[in-house]
């Protein structure tokens, strides 16, 4: 049994056994959940299909959320990608479009997969689905990489938090980016240790990020933070695949995230009392919506 106390331990164990992290996590979870590996793979495939459907519908939709605060931005981004007018190249801009798309579907009460939360649901699928398209990966490969994402996510949830109310946005969009980065590294043939470094890079880049949703809704700034979270994951994966290493070991980064989350004032942890939620514009929006 894996205790999910340390990402380094997961990476070490995978290296020693000559396996990928996803294989270890799948084997362990099949034992833990008393189901076959095939059954778990099929369950995960179902989640991937929901993710892909959300991305697809969000990219074409122009409908607004119930509050009227969000909607249609993914479509704008997608038009830039399809028109070949992207500033940063296809992989990044397509990833951004999908992250916005899925987060907008979430805001409009569409069906998504919490990954790890509803507020951060666009990050992991945006990057993995884009890599699948651009690098011609198989569905099975992407399904397996979700076990790597989930395995690392379990360590983060256990040792720190994946909830904005507990740890701020670093714990939600930060954790999602870290999980996405590690999964992307594995998908692109990187080693378990590279996945661990990618996870560390993504978390380090957003340490201290607060959860300050305008009017308490999962829209502003959450939807755009899904896009920046997906970009963060791509940056982290790219660096790790280049062989760049994290000076601070990944488990210590998670420890730092926990300490920062604990120190963060309550006003900056999803209560909509501080940060962007406390700006004059946000307060005006809140008054109008909550009236």
């Amino acid at each position: 049994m894996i205790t999910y106390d340390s990402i380094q331990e997961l990476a070490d164990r995978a290296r020693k056994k000559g396996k990928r992290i996803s294989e270890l996590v799948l084997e362990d979870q099949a034992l833990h959940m008393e189901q076959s590996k095939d059954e778990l793979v099929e369950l995960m495939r179902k989640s991937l299909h929901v993710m892909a459907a959300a991305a697809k519908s969000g990219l074409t939709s122009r409908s607004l959320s119930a509050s009227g605060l969000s909607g249609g931005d993914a479509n704008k981004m997608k038009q830039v990608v399809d028109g070949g007018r992207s500033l940063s190249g296809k992989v990044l801009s397509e990833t951004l479009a999908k992250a916005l798309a899925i987060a907008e579907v979430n805001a409009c009460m569409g069906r998504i997969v919490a990954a790890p939360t509803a507020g951060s649901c666009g990050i992991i699928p945006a990057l993995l689905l884009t890599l699948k398209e651009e690098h011609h990966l198989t569905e099975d490969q992407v399904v397996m990489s979700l076990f790597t994402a989930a395995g690392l996510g379990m360590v983060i949830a256990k040792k720190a938090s994946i909830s904005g109310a507990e740890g701020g946005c670093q714990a939600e969009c930060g954790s999602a980016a870290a999980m996405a980065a590690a999964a992307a590294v594995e998908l692109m043939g990187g080693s378990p240790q590279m996945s661990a470094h990618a996870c560390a890079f993504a978390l380090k880049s957003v340490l201290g990020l607060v959860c300050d949703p305008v009017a308490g809704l999962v829209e502003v700034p959450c939807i755009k933070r899904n896009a920046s979270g997906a970009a963060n994951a791509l940056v982290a994966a790219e660096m790790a695949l280049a062989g760049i290493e994290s000076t601070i070991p990944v488990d210590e980064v998670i420890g730092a995230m926990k300490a920062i989350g604990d120190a963060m004032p309550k006003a900056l942890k999803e209560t909509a009392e501080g940060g962007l939620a406390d700006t004059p514009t946000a307060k005006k929006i809140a008054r109008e919506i909550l009236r």
Partner: protein
Amino acid sequence: MNVFDIIGPIMVGPSSSHTAGAVRIGQIARVVAGGKPVAVTIELYGSFAQTYKGHGTDKAIIAGLLGMAPDDQRIKDSLALAGQAGMSFKFRKSSNQAVHPNTALISAVDQLGKKTIVQGSSVGGGRIVVNRINEINVKFKGDYYTLLIPHTDTPGVIAAVTKLLADHGINIAELNMYRSHRGGEAMMVIETDQAVKAEVVSLIEAVKTVKKAVLIEPIY
């Protein structure tokens, strides 16, 4: 915790606590109220009261009361669907302090005019805790097969009920007893590892001083 707690659940947005959890509170209220309420009043507390419109918490609770699960894409249309299903509803914001910031108190009236009260809190990640059934404070999460057994507080009731479960090879994961006062109204909440068949539920209902037995299937 398993991988599907992290990549999952599959749900309708925007918020696991304000939407998915709210659907589940509604789902449980529907079962406890006997399956088909015709009029419901929902009192919202704390953050539920503050942000219910933007998070669709109202639509989510109504969807649950109509029998939908958290991944049902009809959730956003549930208020209209309630009308078609012949269920009227009313929402009230409460400024009172609740047991938890995300709490809803649902009063559901069935066709015979019988009223059932269920109060639940959404505690994060779509998980919930039911903390009141009618006048009795309880505590269960809906992650097991859960038997709610209102009865009169008398010696031997627990023994009789647990013996029936044992005789049918059903293992108890957790058992709690709540009562208003000695010899008064009481509620047994039994969570089991195995499914409880309808015939076993009927046998439990035949136990002396047991008023009813309601089985809630796991909602996760």
